[in-house]
């Protein structure tokens, strides 16, 4: 009977022949993203390798040889790791775009109240065309990311856009938006016209997103730097 496949703190995989656990560790080292998502993917790969090893054992190979055949079938760890990494980056791009889409409207609303109290978004856009352009860019890039990384509506023709670039563009546009409104808000403070508590809330929200968006963009580009196990 197959033994449970569990990751040990030291990086080894319990219940698997050594070549398989080494192979899994190599693939895992190539993956970006949170441990939980990696573990989920690696459990599935490990399950397949166990099945493949059993398949070759049933054909009469000793366990170690069977494990090596299973690994050979699976493909080079660098290739498999790269495929999983690409998948995880797509997931990350989607999460980033969803986060920006979710935080955009409330932060925008706060700044509307601060910058053009009692007037609609049109007033702000007319006064600050650069902000309007950046907002449009961020929204389009986020929408493109979400559409290319998940189920797209049937009526939509296939969108051929790199979701990683689109998400990074959205992060850059959101960062510039925040910098712009914060610069305007700083001027208001200097002129003594920023008096409401909404100003502080809006500035805090933008600063929080400023801490998030550039980091998220870097994560979309970066390779993992974990040491091999």
């Amino acid at each position: 009977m197959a033994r449970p496949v569990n990751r040990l703190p030291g990086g080894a995989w319990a219940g698997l022949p050594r070549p398989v656990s080494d192979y899994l560790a190599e693939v895992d080292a190539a993956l970006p993203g949170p441990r939980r998502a990696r573990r989920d993917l690696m459990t599935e790969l490990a399950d397949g390798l166990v099945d493949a090893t059993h398949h070759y054992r049933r054909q009469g190979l000793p366990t170690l040889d069977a494990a090596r055949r299973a690994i050979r079938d699976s493909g080079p760890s660098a290739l498999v790791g790269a495929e999983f990494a690409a998948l995880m980056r797509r997931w990350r791009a989607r999460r980033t775009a969803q986060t920006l889409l979710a935080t955009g409207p409330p932060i925008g609303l706060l700044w509307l109240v601060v910058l053009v109290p009692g007037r609609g978004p049109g007033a702000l856009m007319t006064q600050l065309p650069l902000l309007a352009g950046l907002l449009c860019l961020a929204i389009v890039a986020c929408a493109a990311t979400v559409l290319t990384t998940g189920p797209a509506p049937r009526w939509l023709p296939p969108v051929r856009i790199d979701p990683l670039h689109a998400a990074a563009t959205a992060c850059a546009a959101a960062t510039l938006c925040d910098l712009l409104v914060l610069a305007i808000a700083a001027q208001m403070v200097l002129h003594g016209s920023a008096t409401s508590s909404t100003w502080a809330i809006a500035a805090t929200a933008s600063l929080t997103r400023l801490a998030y968006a550039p980091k998220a963009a870097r994560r979309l580009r970066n390779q993992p730097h974990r040491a091999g196990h």
Partner: protein
Amino acid sequence: MKAEVLKGHLDGLLLATLEDGPLHGYAVIEALRAGSEGRFDLATGTVYPALRRLESSGLLRSGWSVVSGRRRRTYHLTDRGRQALAGQRTDWEEFAATVTALLGGRPWPVL
């Protein structure tokens, strides 16, 4: 058959293996191997991310179950996946018919 040749068709092949019912990842690989009589030179480890990508696109759904003490992920086609498979079949039939005609040295169709 080289992996590069397969690359553009892997999604359709994976959808086709799941047409008759849910399978876990290794069973999908086995079905590909059996269906091709071992002719596909495919790195089987790349099938798992491809299945997850199809799931992200809404063409498959999956869930975990425990079999013989091991967690195992099983995939099945969604309605959208069945439609995508039908589309890929049509595209493939047109493509294959055209290439067969050209490679077979038949006259170029008069338009």
